[in-house]
């Protein structure tokens, strides 16, 4: 088991964004998190990475309690994320963005950096190699010197994935990776996520593109109004009456009759 959420509740003032949410993600899975707008999916991401701390409940990662750790420590443990509204370092080059992603996997401080010691140079070369390999993976090699904000939208999403992978995560959180993509882009994103899975990275993703989610995910959890509605394989979810009602609205009895 990679990630375990136990009875997570998050309140903002009087509003309860998440109520008693529990689920487990197994190693190597692609796990989908779906639900109507405002269901609390992104809030859940923010709680996992401790951008917000949960009001109650506990999160364990690889058997170790991580709730309460600072966000950068959580990245260090091996969880990294992308953002729903792309948050690249927009004025940096594509390559530099990925290099920043590798920050927690390198150590050189001020003195070593200024003196360019042997270990620092080795570390820099290593980070460059990793970054170039990841850009190759997401298909952005030839844009490595471009400024991030000049990339097309779909490319920016892929760059965010490369940047997150640079921290060598065991669990990757993707917040609506296919949003705003056309069909071809979505297809290549599908292949990319499959490739990421093959590298041994467990993936948790939020997505609204249902055909995409159903095809990609091994298991899915559905959230509605901050509560877990259902959990299961894509086939189970598609046939779950409650889920259909949450998405399409319940039919009144007399109409059926």
């Amino acid at each position: 088991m990679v990630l375990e959420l136990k009875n997570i509740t998050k309140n903002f003032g009087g509003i309860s964004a998440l109520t008693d949410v529990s689920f487990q993600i197994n190693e190597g899975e692609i796990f989908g998190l779906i639900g109507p707008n405002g269901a609390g999916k992104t809030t859940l991401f923010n709680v996992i990475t401790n951008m917000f701390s949960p009001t109650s409940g506990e999160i364990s990662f690889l058997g170790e309690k991580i709730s309460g750790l600072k966000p950068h420590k959580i990245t260090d443990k091996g969880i990294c994320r992308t953002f729903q509204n792309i948050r690249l370092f927009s004025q940096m080059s594509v390559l530099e963005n990925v290099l920043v992603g590798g920050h927690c996997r390198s150590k050189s401080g001020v003195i070593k950096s200024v003196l360019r010691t042997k270990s620092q140079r080795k570390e820099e070369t290593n980070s460059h190699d990793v970054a170039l390999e990841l850009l190759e993976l997401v298909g952005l090699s030839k844009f490595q010197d471009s400024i991030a904000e000049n990339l097309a939208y779909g490319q920016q999403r892929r760059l965010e994935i490369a940047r997150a992978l640079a921290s060598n995560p065991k669990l990757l959180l993707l917040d609506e990776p296919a949003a705003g993509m056309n069909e071809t882009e979505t297809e290549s994103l599908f292949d990319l996520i499959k490739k990421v899975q093959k590298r041994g990275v467990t993936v948790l993703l939020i997505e609204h593109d249902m055909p995409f989610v159903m095809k990609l995910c091994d298991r899915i959890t559905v959230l509605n109004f901050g509560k877990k509605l259902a959990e299961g394989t894509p086939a189970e979810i598609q046939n779950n009456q409650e889920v259909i009602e949450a998405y399409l609205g319940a039919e009144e009895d007399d109409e059926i009759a």
Partner: protein
Amino acid sequence: MLGDIINPYHLQIVSFILINIILGISIYITLSSGQLSLGNAGFMGIGAYTSALLTINFDLPIFLGIILGAVVAGVFGILIGIPALRLSGVYLAIATLGFGEVIRVIFVNWDSITQGSIGLSGIPHLGRELFKTFKLTGFDPDMLGLKNNQFIYLLVVLILLLVNILLVWFFIRQNKSRVGRAFAAIKMDEKAAESMGINITYYKVLSFTQGAILAGFAGALYAHVMAYISPADFAYHRAIDILIFSIFGGSELIWGAIFGATFMTILPEALRFISDYRYMIYGVILIAMMAFRPQGIIDVSLLKWFKRKLKLKRRGSLGIGTKKYN
């Protein structure tokens, strides 16, 4: 002859430029992690008073005084930098401006030690002290065809130049490393930087403290170049001047701060002949600047353009390619 070209007045201006460049870099380095600090005049004052008092009262060697001045300013930098983490943008600017004023008022009122608003005089002069050491070795500036005065000012300029080169080298290397990338990432998007595993508390305090150390260092040098300091030297107009160095020259690059400090120090001197109007022209230039080139004179694209030109020239004449990662 060397003695005919060297004019102590010009040398004095050059040493002001070199000190102002350090101040410009001090604000550039805090800005590089996205923190707008107007407290650098305060840190400068701390460095200046620390070194001046130690050398006057305890006969400490100047270079030790200067280092301690920078260290004490750095300690204050950490003390201010940690609570300042909660603030950003204009709020941080106002809070740090307030800090600078508090420091100035302490200098004014702590009569018994700082001699209040009269200021401290008789601070050992960097050039003269060094000159004394030179004399002991039997050196005479006459051998270079220089008068004592010329030689003293020349010494100061040379030392400051050396310090400047070292600092620029230091910060360019830092900027091109993991540390520099962390600063830039925090500046562009703090939340994203944190999610990428950057300890923002550490790096923000680090850049704030580096700025404070540099300002304190510049202040200590200032004290030993002027041989006289008073609280008025570190009032808020100094804080604004320092900010202008970096904003005018361009805050994205260290070269911006260097250019800004140089230009803004020369300008009032060059305009001396129209005495009454010179600060008006200074003001007009600033307004025009903000209207037409808000990012400052030197920005990344200008530097790239310049580098390309240089590369083409070199390729043309020598026929060599350039390495990609350096």
